[in-house]
């Protein structure tokens, strides 16, 4: 669970930066430096999510998790059940 949690926290950190840049770009769509930062972070975020999903199952129902039987989407823990250290 420790490895899983640290990967999840990494995704949360990357996605936070992406959200922050997303909102900034909504009102500054011509800011080239911010655009570059957004695409750089987005690539890192996608890579981190892909890596997580391959090991621990889907974060997104249409994501990169491998085909699996039975349906893995409903497996716990759900977000409100996770015990962070």
């Amino acid at each position, binding site marked *: 669970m420790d490895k899983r949690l640290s990967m*999840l*926290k990494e*995704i*949360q950190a990357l*996605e*936070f930066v992406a*959200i*922050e840049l*997303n*909102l*900034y770009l*909504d*009102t*500054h*769509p011509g800011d080239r430096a911010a655009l570059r930062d957004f695409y750089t972070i987005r690539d890192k975020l996608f890579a981190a999510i892909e890596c997580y999903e391959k090991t621990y199952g*889907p*974060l*997104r*129902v*249409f994501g990169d998790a491998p085909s699996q039987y039975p349906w893995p*989407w409903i497996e716990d823990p*759900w*977000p*409100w059940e*996770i015990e*962070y*250290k």
Partner: protein
Amino acid sequence: MWIYEKKLEYPVRVYKNDIGMARLLMAQYGGPDSELSAAVRYLTQRYTMPTNKAKGLLTDIGTEEMAHWEIVATMIYKLVKGVPAKQLREAGLGAYFAEHDRAVYPADAAGMPWTAAYIQATGDPIADLHEDMAAEQKARATYEHLIQLTDDPGVKDTLRFLRQREVVHFQRFGEALNDVQALMDSKKFF
């Protein structure tokens, strides 16, 4: 449409049960300036915005507010998890428990159910964006009150994150408002 990501935007750590704090957090879950009000307010107002910046911003901030609503619900869920009914009653949540058990029902800290009367959508982008900026400041003030009301370092940490997001949203709404005002000025005729 929306697609769910099976994770919180920010981790929620709760070190011990605190029924009173769970009740106080309901302010930000189902109260007038709650995350639910914010999400419904922005996702409702976006349809009648005149600029693409404002349409995009209301869509994206409205979406982030749903993630914040989930974070507040998670704090409440964890704060009362496993607490016996009698203790909930002693802490003043007897009436709540009778109707909702430990379900996370959208009501305010006094038990008043959430209502759309908490929000407005006037169809006037200047009025709506001013409402949004005021709402972010009211939510920031509420988070500052809540931070003072708990000693739990985990709860404080998550509340500080949420407080900071209100400040950023306020800033962005101000920028969208300036943009809308510039558009209105350019169209003025007498």
